[in-house]
């Protein structure tokens, strides 16, 4: 049973991890905005080339998964374990859909010569910076996808604990903390989506 002091300790630690992760992405955001300022035409073209419906669906998928895990936390506090289990399964399924769409999207891009790295890029050319947009795209969505996978592993662990009844309404803290991490992963995508799919020049 986690004591109140332990709960506090873990929560401070998880928020600190989240701050750390935000800073990990920060340099990439900085690069994006700087290169976008330098190469507006290439970035505008890049946004148009990105597959809009996939980005949109992925956004809806992640937002829904955030809702599902928030609902799981809420249900757990009222000891409705069956609801919790269903919500967690939903989060995992939605995460899977997100990753599948991502891989599909990358596959389509690669077949068109849109690859990371200036040396190998043979996709549409819209002036200097064209390949930079996509290198950043792959790197940022790739790094984000890694965090999605990490989040799903944590959620699977929590789901197993719920099933084993070591995580209960009296001691829901592991679920609450994993949920925090998942919401952060969602929040990163909330910014990646307009940056790579919506914002034309």
């Amino acid at each position, binding site marked *: 049973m986690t004591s109140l002091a332990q709960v506090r300790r873990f929560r401070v630690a998880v928020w600190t991890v989240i701050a750390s992760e935000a*800073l990990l992405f920060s340099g990439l955001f900085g690069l994006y905005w700087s290169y976008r*300022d330098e190469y507006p035409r290439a970035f505008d073209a890049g946004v148009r080339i990105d597959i809009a419906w996939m980005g949109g669906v992925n956004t809806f998928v992640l937002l829904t998964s955030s809702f599902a895990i928030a609902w799981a936390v809420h249900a757990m506090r009222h000891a409705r374990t069956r609801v919790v289990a269903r919500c967690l399964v939903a989060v995992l399924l939605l995460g899977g859909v997100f990753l599948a769409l991502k891989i599909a999207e990358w596959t389509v891009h690669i077949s068109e010569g849109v690859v990371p790295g200036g040396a190998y890029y043979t996709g549409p050319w819209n002036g200097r910076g064209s390949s930079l947009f996509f290198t950043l795209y792959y790197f940022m969505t790739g790094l984000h996808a890694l965090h999605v996978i990490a989040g799903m592993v944590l959620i699977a662990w929590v789901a197993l604990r719920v099933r084993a009844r070591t995580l209960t309404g009296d001691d829901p803290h592991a679920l609450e903390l994993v949920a925090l991490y998942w919401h952060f992963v969602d929040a990163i995508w909330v910014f990646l989506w307009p940056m790579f799919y919506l914002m034309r020049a």
Partner: protein
Amino acid sequence: MTTHSLPTGRAIVLTYVLVVVLAAASWIAASLGTGTGLALAIAAVKTIAIALVFMELIASPASDRVIAVIAVLFVALMCAGLLGDVAFR
């Protein structure tokens, strides 16, 4: 040591509806070609909603909120530093 109590089920549902509506608005605005500022502003509002309700910052002790604010400020600092270089050369 909280200012509000934990979000209710209703608050969670309403927040979800809000962020989905905002996402749809973002999509529509983009197809109409309204540009960077609006898209970012909508993204910021969505993130704040997620942070306050889903991440329960509205009911968390001050130290958690301070950490979150500092994280956001420092990401902004990084972007400002790089952009302030490239944009003003």
